[in-house]
């Protein structure tokens, strides 16, 4: 286990991002250890996706710094992208291409050789139960299937770090379970995972460490158990509600539930 002073594989310091005057990320600092599954939780609009966008080179920070594997996310982003896999919140592949052609194209632009691409695509389609869909156009797939193919696309080049932005949204129970098992397996193989999810049980089940972000600022970090103990709650969902300040909304829901029952 890494000691406290050891530098993380992802280091973020005072990261700030404005979009047309709107403060999306506010002096955010955190560290993700190599080989862990890190949960990045927060309510809608908290700044999770904005932070990921900066880390993977889709946006530039307004100020602050971030490094991945000691490489600067602004100056050395092309090198970073070689080792990083990203599943964005949208299933963004090409409708006109088949599942296999989409994955092959992604492998091509990542510089994966033809043989490695073939092996990786066959392996991923098998693991995700998509073998019979390989020649189906992306447009013809269901939402859940599209999600699976998008996840496969992030893995074609065998990344060392995987960013997953709401990966199980739109997946059925079984597919979500398969994906969670896959995330754990990838992690056992040494892949560091940076995960955002709205499913708190998913974070509790998968994550070694969690950061909770509200209005672009980190409210709390720690292990799932540590966060529960800090907030004096019995489960991570209650800890999340306590930390994010959504307590009043929860009380209203509880009250409504009691009233109707």
């Amino acid at each position, binding site marked *: 286990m890494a000691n406290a002073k050891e530098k993380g594989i992802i280091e973020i310091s005072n990261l700030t991002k404005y979009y047309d005057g709107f403060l999306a990320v506010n002096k955010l600092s955190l560290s993700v250890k190599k080989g862990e599954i890190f949960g990045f939780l927060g309510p809608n609009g908290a700044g999770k996706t904005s932070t990921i966008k900066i880390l993977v*080179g889709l946006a530039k920070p307004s100020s602050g710094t971030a490094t991945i594997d000691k490489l600067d996310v602004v100056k050395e982003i092309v090198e970073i*992208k*070689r080792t990083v896999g990203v599943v964005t919140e*949208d299933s963004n*592949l090409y409708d006109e291409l088949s599942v296999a052609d989409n994955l092959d*194209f*992604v492998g091509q632009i*990542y*510089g994966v050789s033809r043989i490695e691409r073939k092996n990786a695509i066959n392996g991923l389609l098998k693991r995700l139960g998509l073998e019979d869909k390989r020649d189906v156009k992306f447009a013809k797939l269901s939402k859940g299937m599209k999600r699976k193919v998008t996840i496969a696309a992030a893995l074609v080049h065998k990344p060392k770090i995987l960013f997953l932005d709401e990966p199980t949204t739109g997946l059925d129970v079984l597919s979500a379970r398969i994906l969670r098992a896959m995330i754990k397996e990838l992690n056992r193989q040494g892949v560091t995972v940076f995960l955002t999810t709205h499913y708190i049980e998913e974070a509790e089940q998968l994550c070694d460490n969690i950061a909770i972000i509200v209005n672009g600022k980190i409210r709390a970090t720690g292990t799932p158990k540590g966060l529960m103990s800090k907030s004096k709650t019995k489960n991570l969902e209650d800890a999340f509600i306590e930390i994010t300040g959504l307590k009043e909304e929860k009380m209203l829901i509880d009250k409504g539930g009691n009233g109707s029952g």
Partner: protein
Amino acid sequence: MDKQSLMGAFYIALKDLKTYYFKPPNLSWGIMFPIVMALAFVLRNPGEISELAPGIIAMSILFASTSAEAIVIVFERRTKTFDRLMLAPLSVESVLFGKVLGGVIFGFLMSCVFLLGSAALMSVSWENLAFLILSLLMSALVFSVFGTFVSVYVKEIFDAMTLANFFRFPMIFLCGVFIPVSAMPAFIRPLSYLFPLTYSVDLIRFFLTGAHDVTDPLVSSIVLIAYSIILFYSSVWVLKKRME
């Protein structure tokens, strides 16, 4: 640009050709529009085919290279598939070069169709074939980069079509496609000199018939290359600015 960047750009171009360019609506813009325009003029003056051929070929490149190019990036930004390219280990320059390359290949192929069609109807000097091909490629490059710039600059597909047509349609009548620039009223000519299509038509005319109307082929080549470089780096700048 290193080997991986060049390969990445090449694969982006191949993907664009497959998904966007070789589709019926785009083929109709690339082929049908110049044919219809040419027919309108040829039917009026049947003997003028050799006069019209360079302009028709250049116009086919303009429409073929820009018809998809001007909307591809806007469309991919809307569907978020452009993020897929930006996530790859390629520089902004490489991604945009890939986009440009798709338009260049399609524009060049379309111009070959019109070149062969012209050759069947008139006597063409094939002595300068290498230079003729080079002039077609330079024309495809400048128009494809123009399409890329439009696509990067605007936010909506409708705006892309409006902006592209704002330049494309005046160019047809101002740049020597149907009426030689030298035959135009003097007050219009300075406007003609501003548009790259003028130099494209003149260059193709020179290598097709041995005579030029506007300027020396070297000057035309320099102007086309300069336009391509300026528009390409403007597109890179706009895209980088959007990420800030």
